[in-house]
């Protein structure tokens, strides 16, 4: 199972890529653990998670080819 991970703003500064392909995460908690292991600086950053463009509040099961976005606090306007 492969997930597309998108990064934005400060998160891109940490991960250095705007798009990653990640395998081996069944749900968002596992995905976050995996990312925070690979990019420890993530742990000190605030962000929210969107699965297929919807922000999630709880651990969410992932499907093959889901798009997960790591969103730092919005600052538009």
């Amino acid at each position, binding site marked *: 199972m492969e997930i597309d991970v998108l990064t*934005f*703003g400060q998160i891109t500064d940490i991960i250095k890529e705007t798009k990653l392909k990640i395998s081996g995460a069944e749900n968002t908690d596992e995905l976050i653990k995996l990312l925070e292991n690979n990019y420890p600086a993530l742990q000190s950053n605030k962000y929210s998670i*969107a699965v297929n*463009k919807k922000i999630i509040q709880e651990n969410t099961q992932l499907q093959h080819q889901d798009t997960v*976005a790591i*969103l730092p*606090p*919005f*600052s*538009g306007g």
Partner: protein
Amino acid sequence: MEEKRGHTIFIDGPINPGFIAEAIAKHSHKKNIGAHSIFLGQVRSDKIGNEEVAAIEYTTYREMAEEKFHDIREDAFKKFSIICMHIYHSLGIVKAGEISLFVFTSSIHRKDAIDTCEAIVERIKKEVPVWGKEIFTNENSQWKTNT
């Protein structure tokens, strides 16, 4: 039946006053409109130490932002008695003193346009995935945080 018009358009660079004038002028044929409310966000040259903000560079998660703008528009037409509404947001570089956000609501009576405009601005700031990177006069930069 009332035609419910709405546009949400990302604009490359600043939103020019002439563009705002054209948007206003386009509503003169809608003769049931009695009130327009407009909000404009302008880039501030905030000082941090000896440096000041020269510009903000805006980026977005476009697919999600467009869905969110659509939801905001649908909700506004459900909740408020408005005739039309338009939202424009800049992407890319907008210099200090230039305009990066233009929210425009119109209604028969003033309260509807005013309340809707304010509610939309709040939702955009909180819910739309746009990020501003403040670029300082010495070319350093930092990510903007909304209050």
